[in-house]
């Protein structure tokens, strides 16, 4: 057994909590938008199928929100429990977005409660739709503010640190640090994209299981359309993120790309493995691509890992995470494009079994992409907790019981994870859409 080191255990526990939380947080950010879209379509087209879609999504959403809220509470409190010295500094410089995040969360919580219990309370359905807007603003807003906090850790700005004393603080500058624009937009777009695919996966799976009702096809069309838009958005922002990294955190980009020598016309390496003396084997080289990703021109010089001291470098395995994230992103974009070509092309069959299976597989993959992306981003700024200011080890608690807490929380997340999937499965299995569709058609509400 290695010696007990609270910093190591704090890192593991924080990544465990965050890794679990971001699944539900992503759903919390993206799904309200999808629900609102479906409700809007239902009202505008006077099509009860879309309204039913919104309702069924909302029903499952509540369950995931509960887990998102409680794990979010966990990480909110754990920040102070596990990283007290870091929070001392962060409290001085970056408390503002954290504070704003709670207000956004408040709005979301209040209006979600109202939204869920007022489906039939207004004479005009559009009033109910308007209630979804504060939910979307609240959930996306809290994602935005919390990501600003994380951006600050990557690109600290707006303060001066001298001998452990922090002075000359500009809260707005700290919030709108260089990493903020790309991080926030990448987080939002990828969350919307992931949720579109999670819901598309469900629709595709239902069609594959022989559900013939047009309801499922409408669900697939809506989710894939949004998927296409956000896939393109995510890719564009991803490219901008690369340019941000090249300028402000070149060591992260270099580590992600196994780029050792500072050279111009730098190639991009896909896949491969790294030998012990830092040679890349079996990698696929794309000439100029890294220069283009980093600076937008094929001849640009890209800074390499050899320029840095070894103790300032992140671990090099993040290359695999980066590649996996990008590959999944490309795969998602390809699927949405294919779906559209097949839809528009008269002889095409957008419900081909292979395509549907690919969409089913893409749903969990998109969640993996979120996880890979976050691990890449977080591990990529090691050894810093505040890049350039505070090493991760200096921020950690000195408590002697982090290991026990780690096991306790591991158990908690296991139980919650299993429970939530079982509850969701039985929820939809015991009340299949067919039954509700039948009720809809019986009531004569379906005019088409």
């Amino acid at each position, binding site marked *: 057994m290695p010696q007990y080191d609270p910093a190591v255990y704090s890192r593991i526990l924080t990544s465990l909590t965050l890794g679990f939380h971001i699944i539900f947080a992503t759903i919390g950010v993206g799904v309200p938008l999808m629900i609102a879209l479906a409700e809007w379509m239902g009202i505008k087209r006077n099509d009860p199928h879309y309204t039913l879609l919104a309702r069924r999504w909302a029903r499952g959403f509540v369950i995931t929100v509960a887990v998102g809220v409680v794990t979010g509470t966990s990480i909110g409190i754990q920040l102070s429990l596990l990283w007290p010295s870091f929070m001392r500094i962060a409290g001085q410089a970056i408390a503002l977005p954290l504070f704003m995040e709670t207000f956004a969360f*408040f709005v979301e919580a*209040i209006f979600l409660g109202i939204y869920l219990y007022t*489906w039939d309370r207004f004479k005009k359905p559009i009033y109910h739709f308007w209630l979804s807007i504060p939910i979307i603003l609240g959930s996306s807003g809290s994602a935005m503010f919390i990501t600003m906090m994380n951006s600050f850790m990557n690109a600290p700005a707006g303060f001066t640190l001298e001998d452990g004393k922090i002075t000359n603080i500009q809260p707005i500058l700290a919030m709108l640090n260089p990493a903020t624009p790309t991080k926030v937009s990448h987080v939002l777009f990828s969350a919307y994209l992931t949720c579109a695919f999670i819901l598309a996966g469900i629709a595709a799976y239902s069609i594959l299981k022989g559900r013939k009702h047009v309801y499922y096809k409408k669900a697939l069309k809506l989710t894939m359309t949004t998927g296409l838009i956000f896939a393109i958005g995510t890719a564009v922002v991803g490219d901008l993120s690369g340019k941000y990294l090249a300028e402000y955190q070149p060591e992260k980009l270099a580590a992600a790309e196994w780029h050792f020598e500072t050279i111009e016309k730098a190639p991009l390496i896909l896949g491969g493995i790294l030998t012990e003396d830092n040679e890349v084997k079996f990698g696929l080289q794309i000439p100029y691509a890294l220069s283009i990703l980093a600076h937008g021109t094929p001849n640009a010089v890209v800074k390499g890992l050899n320029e840095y001291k070894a103790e300032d470098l992140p671990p090099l395995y993040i290359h695999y995470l980066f590649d996996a994230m990008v590959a999944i992103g490309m795969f998602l974009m390809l699927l949405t494009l294919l779906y559209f070509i097949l839809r528009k092309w008269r002889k095409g069959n957008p419900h081909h079994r292979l395509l549907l299976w690919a969409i089913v597989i893409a749903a969990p993959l998109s969640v993996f992409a979120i996880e890979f992306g976050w691990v890449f981003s977080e591990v990529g700024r090691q050894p810093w907790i505040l890049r350039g200011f505070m090493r991760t080890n200096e921020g950690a608690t000195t408590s002697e019981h982090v290991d026990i807490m780690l096991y306790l929380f591991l158990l908690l997340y296991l139980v919650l994870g299993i429970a939530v999937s079982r509850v969701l499965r039985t929820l939809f299995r015991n009340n299949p859409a067919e039954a509700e569709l039948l009720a809809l058609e019986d009531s004569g509400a379906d005019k088409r």
Partner: protein
Amino acid sequence: MSYELLGITVLWTFLYGYLIVASVDFGAGFFSYYSELTGKKNVIHHIIQRYLSPVWEVTNVFLIFFMVGIVGFFPDTAYYYGTALLIPGSVAIILLAIRGSYYAFANYGSKKDNRFYLFLYGATGLLIPASLSTVLTLSEGGFIEERGNKVIFLYEKLFTSSYSWSVVLLAIVSVLYISAVFLTYYASRANDGAALQLLRRYALGWSMPTILSSMLVFFAISRHNPVHFERMVDLFWMFALSFICFAVAVYLVWTRKAYGLAFVFVMLQFAFAFFGYGAAHMPHILYPYLTIYDNFTNDTMAVALIVVFILGLLVLIPSLALLMRLFLFDAKYVQGQTKPAK
């Protein structure tokens, strides 16, 4: 008013808000489970669910707000409390996590009113106030020690202290009392006679233990932290007012006069006691290590936080008012005539 005092007042007010809404919530969970055990589930269960369903998520935000705010205004609290509270803090998080998620599983999942879920929900409702009250106990000093670079939490002292146990007792008992009075009011709004009778009995039943355990805390604090006790004696009028409000509330419930007003008096009772306790605690946040003047956040951040706070309230207050109008003061909803869509 200095920024420091303004900051702590804002936070204390939010903590008070949490105390009230969370008490109603925690107590309701317990009563819900208890009524199931005693076979009276059908009497009060639906009343409780109708109130809790739209608001359960909001309760948590009050707590988060306090946590974030205290680190924002007083960054050193993260250092002292953060290190010391790892275990009690984590236990409280785990209980909150179990409670929140199993509430949703029990109410929105397909197997409604699963008995085991209800048990988890009810039991945690009493354990959470106990574990959260530890923080207030710690703030009195004597349980945390700074040795060199380390902040150490003295568990044995906490577990053997009569003061800490009296606070735990007060926390649990007042949760049940606050909750029972509120639910009595809610049942009377719903014109639900049977639920009203039962809840009124609970409210009266928990009133005496509440006032007795508050006195116990008074007594225990005089032995544990005489300095603080002296200051509380200086503010004796606040505690006297608190007692008068208590008497009025019990009278109103006893004579079945005005349940809404009774709940207002319960809120006042706890407001006077809570703010009296808080004012006497000043200027210490953690006795004797930390006062509100030590390492208060810089002025720029304080101003920014206060501005955001005011802007936030501008959004928050109308939203909360809307929530209350739709679910608390809407007679049709309270009486169950508008069915929540499933």
